């Protein structure tokens, strides 16, 4: 793919100048000043003795307390929207899925739509270069999710730029019909979740031969006979059926699916990261080098709370961990992503993303862009991430406390791994005393299935069926500061399958 960049003046600056640009945008956006009026920050900042007018530089941000997703949710519950939005021109409301709790509502202001216009141009350039005549099958969610509204923003962007892009936008439940359409229309690109892409590809391979036989039964033509013969001697793959030449994938880690996507579809997937709270202000996308996702310094101030700090925080709840700007981190540094955005309607100031990321490089990318590159690990120490299914380990803890009919739990841990490409949860339990193993394991499996979306996900093959493993003695894992870890991510979860 092309190495053309959308705007070399802002995308290829030396790192030091990018940081200056970041500072200029922070100042110009008045994000901190505007945020100070919001119920999200004003009381908390006042209690911390913060004078927002004194927060002028990126370094000054360190004086501000972090904002977490649960705080955001709490404020949204307690205050009416007008109390926590930072614009008088909200144009659209979108919400998170709520898989990690009550959905969070995100106002999109006119300034956000404008900023997103630039982001889309950048994003499309990262993926397909300067190509003007692209076509895409966009499989998204339903309102009020961002994956619905975002699709139309892409379309309107094309109109404003007067650059044709052929766009078929469908909601997830309509995917099957849409795939038939995509094949007929020979659409060349796709936006969807990687697990869904692999599921579709597996379906294509599994159904090609029976489908061809069925077609021949219906209509005994030479073409259909050749179809039967072809599918009986060769394995049909998605690339034989679709015309997809590129794809952007998000919502879960792409790496475990990378080789499967390459094998089935014949192209390298582009990984994209963008939480609902952030996507309109700062999407993070992989370029054609596939060596990390570029996080743009002109739309946010990205910081990292490194692992050691996170562990100390876990061990000492009152400890406030220190964060470092991402551009000062060495390659390989892992930590929780913290973002300050310059958004119009809902500027997020030092917002903890609950996602661990790894810094890939702060050096210029071979694609010529200079914005740092990261890899999102899509996990934190308390968030269970099974591809598209996410929930807090503490919700599972609550659920397991209800167990007691067929036995009691002495110790437990949840291990997240993969079976092939599919994420898999393994609940390892050390029972207290003697139990009826089969009945107890079933009771535990039922509890696990009660987690939001879990049963539907494995029944629809999006994840592997969760497993319950009863052990005589559970081997506990502890953080470097000695805290027992309830959630363990095995290497297989993030590695290439």
């Amino acid at each position: 793919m092309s190495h053309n960049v959308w705007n070399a003046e802002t995308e290829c600056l030396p790192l030091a100048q990018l940081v200056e640009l970041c500072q200029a945008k922070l100042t110009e956006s008045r994000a901190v000043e505007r945020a100070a009026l919001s119920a999200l920050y004003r009381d908390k900042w006042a209690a911390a003795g913060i004078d927002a007018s004194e927060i002028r530089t990126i370094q000054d941000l360190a004086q501000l307390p972090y904002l977490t997703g649960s705080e955001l949710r709490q404020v949204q519950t307690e205050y009416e929207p007008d109390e926590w939005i930072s614009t008088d021109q909200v144009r659209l409301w979108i919400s998170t899925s709520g898989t990690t709790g009550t959905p969070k509502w995100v106002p999109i202001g006119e300034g956000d739509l404008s900023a997103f216009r630039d982001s889309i141009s950048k994003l499309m350039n990262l993926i397909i270069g300067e190509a003007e005549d692209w076509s895409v099958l966009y499989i998204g969610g339903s309102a009020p999710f961002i994956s619905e509204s975002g699709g139309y923003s892409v379309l309107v962007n094309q109109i404003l730029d007067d650059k044709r892009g052929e766009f078929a936008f469908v909601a997830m439940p309509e995917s099957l019909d849409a795939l038939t359409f995509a094949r007929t229309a020979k659409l060349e690109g796709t936006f969807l979740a990687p697990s869904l892409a692999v599921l579709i590809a597996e379906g294509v391979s599994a159904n090609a031969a029976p489908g061809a036989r069925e077609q021949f039964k219906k209509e005994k033509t030479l073409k259909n006979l050749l179809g039967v013969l072809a599918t009986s001697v060769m394995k049909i793959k998605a690339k034989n059926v679709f015309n997809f030449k590129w794809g952007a994938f998000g919502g879960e880690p792409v790496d475990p699916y990378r080789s499967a996507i390459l094998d089935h579809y014949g192209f390298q997937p582009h990984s994209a990261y963008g939480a609902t709270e952030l996507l309109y202000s700062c999407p993070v996308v992989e370029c054609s080098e596939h060596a990390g996702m570029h996080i743009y310094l002109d739309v946010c101030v990205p910081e990292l709370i490194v692992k050691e700090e996170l562990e100390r925080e876990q061990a000492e709840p009152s400890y406030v961990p220190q964060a470092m700007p991402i551009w000062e981190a060495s390659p390989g540094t892992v930590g929780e992503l913290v973002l300050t955005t310059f958004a119009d309607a809902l500027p997020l100031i030092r917002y903890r993303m609950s996602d661990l990321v790894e810094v890939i490089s702060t050096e210029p990318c071979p694609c010529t862009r200079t914005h740092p590159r990261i890899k999102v690990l899509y996990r934190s120490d308390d968030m269970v991430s099974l591809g598209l299914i996410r929930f807090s380990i503490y919700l599972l803890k609550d659920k397991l406390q209800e167990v007691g009919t067929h036995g009691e739990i002495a110790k437990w841990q949840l291990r997240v791994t993969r079976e092939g490409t599919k994420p898999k949860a393994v609940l390892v339990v050390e029972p207290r005393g003697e139990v009826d193993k089969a009945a107890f394991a079933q009771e535990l499996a039922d509890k696990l299935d009660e987690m939001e979306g879990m049963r539907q996900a494995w029944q629809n093959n999006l994840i592997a069926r969760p497993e319950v493993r009863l052990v005589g003695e559970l081997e506990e894992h502890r953080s470097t500061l000695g805290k027992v870890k309830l959630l363990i991510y095995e290497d297989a979860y993030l590695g290439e399958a």
Partner: protein
Amino acid sequence: MERLKVRLEPDGVERLPLADLVQLGEHRLVEGQVVQRASRSSLYEERWRRAGVDAGAVKQRNDLRQLPFASGSHAVEAVKRRPLPRFPCTKAWAWYATDTAGERRKWIPYAKQDLLLYMGLLARLGQVTGIKEGDVFLTVTPMAPRITNALPYLWMYADVLDTRQRLEFLVGSMFMLGRSNWTEFALRRQPTVLFCLPQDALDLVEHFAKAAGQPEAKPKQLFDRVRMGIFFGQPLAPRREQIRAAYGVEPFDCYVTTEFPALFAECPAHNGLHLWMDVCIPEIIPTDELEKEKAERGYVPTAVFVDQASAGIEGELVLTTFGEALPLVRYRLGDLVRLVGTDVCSCGVTHPRITILGKA
């Protein structure tokens, strides 16, 4: 964000005398080479060739009568027989699909001008129904790839780019009920305009009551600010009074088709939907002709231009549009309508009014 004019031209076209509107339609048909462009689409190409149609010979509106009708089944057939890229007569920018799933589902191409026209008609819908600055919309949309899914977003952009009424949109979907708390949030945000399918509005009554924790409450007790509803996708008439009683809103009917951004809209006179003559040439196949067609195999019914028909006439609506990606040429929409009148409406709009009676 930059400005882009999406409002339809010429200014004041909604109040042009009917004769001028007819002339404007004819001008757009001929100057826009609609029939010549359409002849490149697989929807018409083969059938017109068989019928000996000379697309270049359509020099005035009356010449349309020489052309065969097209219909949804022709569209399905065209896509089955010819490669999909031959269906639009220019490259598509977006595709939307009809409600039916499976083989009968029609995928309709839209090009840039079609999308801009859609935005323009949404702006007009706001103007005709009396949308005010700062209105907060609660929109409930069917799922993509239906064109009705696009309505709130295209309207929002029409407003951001051109009309500048600072409209705010909260969008939910029936599919997400129970999977999202959008009904609760709607109660908190207190919309002023409801924009959805009429049946969805009725089905939502209990969900809003549940969201408010007041099982007996009607939406009109829960939404203090909502003053009007714009309803699309189904006939409003059978549900109008129920909606009025439940929500306490002034309901407006709006006709939407996938094949073309029609958006024929009811005005505050509530005496039919204005059929926009500047974006199409409408005809009606009268009921007696439809009956004759049913009775006599091979009979080709005769249609009458709406502006030449008498008030009260009932029949199937046929449209010729000036679309970019897929102009409809004498396309039978399969909907029965009654012509309410071609005289000037009490709201001042001059475009004829129809009521939708149901499926033909």
